């Protein structure tokens, strides 16, 4: 299936409306101005070309230039982009990057920060029913991943603290801080005592 301009133009407009709300993303995107990035959306056999600019992105169904970078993934793979700060990691696994990988990762990080409703965007190209089915899958996966993510964070901290003993527990940190306080007080008390003893010592010639 080749996406037609009539379908891709509204998609471009929708992306740019999102970008208009996020000056930071727009600034980051401007660094990638004029680079040519191709998205291969697997399963749908869909290609989209993205050319970032200073004011937004341009999206085309074809672009007659050698891509600087190709991002290849399933719609679900691209949907995982929306998972907040962990998106970088997931993005690497779910979406294959070819060519200038640094460029692909930077673009991925920018897209991840935008709160993109991929179902809504894709529906412009594929029609509602297909996009909705994909969207349901993506939402279920996103919930599962978010849950898995929370569990993972808890398990990981337990491992580092209790098993590997690489990181102290909260209790150990408090203990240590108390000990430091005690040591500081003791040192101060000792200094005061030394000073007092020096004052008490009879000076030569006094006796």
């Amino acid at each position, binding site marked *: 299936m080749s996406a037609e*301009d*009539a379908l891709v*133009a509204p998609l471009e407009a929708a992306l740019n409306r999102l970008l208009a709300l996020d000056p930071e993303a727009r600034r980051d995107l401007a660094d990638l*101005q*004029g*680079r*040519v990035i191709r998205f291969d959306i697997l399963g749908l056999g869909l290609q989209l*070309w993205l*050319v970032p*600019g*200073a*004011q*937004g992105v*341009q999206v*085309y*169904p*074809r*672009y*007659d*230039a050698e891509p600087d970078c190709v991002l290849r993934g399933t719609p679900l793979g691209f949907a995982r982009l929306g998972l907040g700060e962990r998106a970088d990691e997931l993005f690497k696994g779910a979406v294959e990057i070819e060519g200038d990988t640094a460029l692909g990762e930077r673009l991925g990080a920018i897209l991840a920060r935008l709160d993109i409703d991929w179902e809504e965007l894709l529906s412009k190209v594929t029609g509602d029913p297909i996009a909705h089915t994909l969207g349901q899958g993506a939402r279920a996966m996103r919930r599962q991943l978010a849950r898995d993510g929370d569990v993972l964070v808890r398990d990981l901290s337990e491992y580092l603290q209790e098993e590997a003993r690489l990181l102290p527990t909260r209790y150990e940190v408090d203990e240590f801080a108390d000990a430091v306080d005690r040591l500081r007080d003791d040192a101060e008390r000792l200094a005061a005592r030394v000073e007092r003893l020096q004052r008490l010592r009879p000076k030569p010639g006094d006796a």
Partner: protein
Amino acid sequence: MANERPDTTHFGFQQVPVEEKAERVRQVFDSVADRYDLMNDLMSLGIHRLWKRQAIALAGVRRGQRVLDLAAGTGDLAGRFAEIVGPSGLVVFSDINGAMLEQGRIRMADAGRAGNIEYVQADAQALPFAGACCDCVTMAFGLRNVTHKERALVEMQRVLRPGGRALILEFSHPLSRPLNTLYDLYSFNVLPTLGRLVTGDADSYRYLAESIRMHPDQETLKAMMEAAGFERCEYFNLTGGIVAIHRGWKV
């Protein structure tokens, strides 16, 4: 044309002295400049935006390149090119008509596009640029208004760097007879009426419709590009051949 005397050329369906055509075309565009954009939308039912997108996609311009947009008009192509080439590239926004150029400049400024666009009022038949200075030359809906099309093509070829490409987006000849009939009906009846209602100038839009009929068809224009020194010439029919994009390379 058989009845064309050597010292006359066509202005729509009329024959006019060669030296008069440019002046007549200028009058047409002076008259329509401030509402040209709205009229384009009405005339093409908004499809001209999609035709222009296809031209951009076929141009395949990238960061840092230099693009010359002839007959830039309201800047639909130039604006997108400026976004793509970025601060390290350059877009030369050129039109022979001062009123159109001024409209385009205002539109670009309103859209916040500045820094990498230069405005040059120039005749496509005698471009004021050094040879081999651009990566891409485009002309959208302009060539049919040029008196000596072959001179403009030679000039486009001259200013291109080796490896550069020229794109000509222009009305052409519909491929099927039914479409052609419908199209004739639209352009000779609906279009001048629209023109009168929107710009108050039916004659200018009658000229536009007539000039489209007089413009060389797909194969003829391709042959003209080859004669001007372009290589690997090809054309892409859009909307059933109502519009075609011709592309040629300088090798």
